[in-house]
């Protein structure tokens, strides 16, 4: 679904930047944030289709973003990314609740395929 709107939240700015650069080439609209609060505020202004969020962040973490987003707008797809290599307790906690999950490092192509699948396009 070309033209879909995506929010990326990750305290590593390269993640957002690279997703933005590669996705916008394919016609997606991508906005990037280094922490959750401004992203959540942005969501209140406009509807978005997909949220890609890091799990471990200072302050509001990925779990909380997931809870807030799903409560307020259950249609938004949430994809979790994390540098935790193994499926540890934190990863287990988000499994089944998130729409998909990518351990870092991941393939941008896989992320694209996933988003297309989630958006039915």
């Amino acid at each position, binding site marked *: 679904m070309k033209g879909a709107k995506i929010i990326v939240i990750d305290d590593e700015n390269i993640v957002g930047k690279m997703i933005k650069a590669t996705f916008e*080439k394919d016609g997606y609209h991508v906005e990037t944030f280094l922490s959750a609060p401004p992203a959540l505020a942005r969501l209140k202004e406009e509807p978005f289709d997909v949220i890609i969020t890091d799990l471990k962040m200072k302050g509001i973490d990925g779990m909380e973003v997931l809870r807030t987003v799903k409560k307020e707008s259950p249609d938004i797809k949430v994809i979790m990314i994390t540098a*935790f290599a193994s499926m540890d307790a934190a990863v287990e906690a988000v499994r089944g609740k998130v729409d998909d999950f990518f351990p870092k490092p991941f393939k941008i192509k896989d992320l694209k395929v996933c988003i297309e699948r989630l958006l039915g396009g």
Partner: protein
Amino acid sequence: MKIVHKIILANLFDILLIALTGLFAYQNLQLLLTKLRYVEIADDLNASFLEIRISEKNFFLYHDATELVNIHNKLRESQNAMQSEREDIIRAIGEPNYRQLELCTQDYLEVINAAGQRGMNQESLQVRIREAGQRLREFADHITKLERANVNRIIAGSRNGLFISLVLILISALGISQLVSQRILKSLKEIEKVAHAISGGTFRKVHAVHPFHEPAWMEQLVSKLPLLRTFFTKKTPDELDSVMKAINSMSEELKQHEEMIIQSKKLASIGILTAGVAHELGNPLNNISMLAQAYTELYDDLGREERIEYMQKVEEETERIRDIVKNLLDFSKPKKPNRAEASINAVIQKSLSLVGNMLQVSNIEIDVHLADNLPHVLIDINQIQEVLINLITNAIQASSAGDELRIRSGLDDTGEHIQIAIQDTGRGIPPEFLPHVFDPFFTTKEAGGTGLGLFVSYGIIQNHQGTIQVQSEMGSGTCFTITLPVCRREETGG
């Protein structure tokens, strides 16, 4: 030798001593009675002999023949008395003396009889009568005196014997009670010390306390008598030895358990470390990967500047990884500490001067009390300074303006360790976080905490054979206490 056997042995000795004393006293008493019996007989005999001498004198003065008959009769009486009491007299003065006495009496009797038959005018006969009478009287007197002296000697001997026995019994009773109580008390004291040490976390062993060693003659005696050997072999542990053995095995088991706990904690912290490393490395790795993917995908769209920027970012992220790996290597392979004898107070002052600016900016009150004349510690000054700065920085970061930072140094109760306390009146650490403050990558700081400071500090203090402990209460503050062993003279050769 068991304590109970020692007590039995001592009691047997005392009983034997008392029995011997009793026997000795009884024998003396028997002898005394015999002697007294003789003295009684002798008094009777002497009275008779005195009467005989009086009759003899009368005979010589008045030439009365009836006196001779009197003497004869008295002598016969005395002889009969001696005969009837023969046994008692012999027991008291011995057979030779008795025979001598008998001879004197018989001699006298014969002279008297001769005088009766041949008439009393014969000069030589008179002399013989006098001589025989005198001899009898003197000998009887002599024997009686001798026996009285014997009686006195026996009484004195008994008195001394009883006194010596009493002293010996007292000494042996005191000796054994001293020996047993010393052994028990000293052992109990040793056990008490070990129990204290164990409760303090030091699993040392009890050393057997033997205030007195069994004397050599006792060993010889025991080795010569097979019956005693079954009871008193030196190798048989006594009751206290058994207690100490039990305590030692308990201490050993506790030590093993503690080692197991430490081992499992180590494994757990390796797990935490691994997870931490994975996470720390995961981010830069992902960044490099994404940069490379985007670079490939967007290659044609990217300008020259952008391509260079991408590659520079790859380089930066690689550096990030290199730093993490370098830090980890530093922590996992601690540099050999460069130790020197140092005054801990000087190190504290130096550390404070290094963080002085930070303290001023944060507006935190500082209260430093360092004990005078503290013994030196053998430390790597830079490493200990790193620990102190780390703890002081943490305290400052946990405090707000107007809070107080207290720093104390002093000796612990045993005098073997220097204690340094760094206490703040800041936020405190939540109880659920306390067990993890020394774990690698554990941090409660909002930003910029690596979670390695306390982990590294812990390692440094451990390498110095010291301890680091934390106490904290939410809202009232946190106190870190470091102990470092006092520098011993013999270790430094000074």
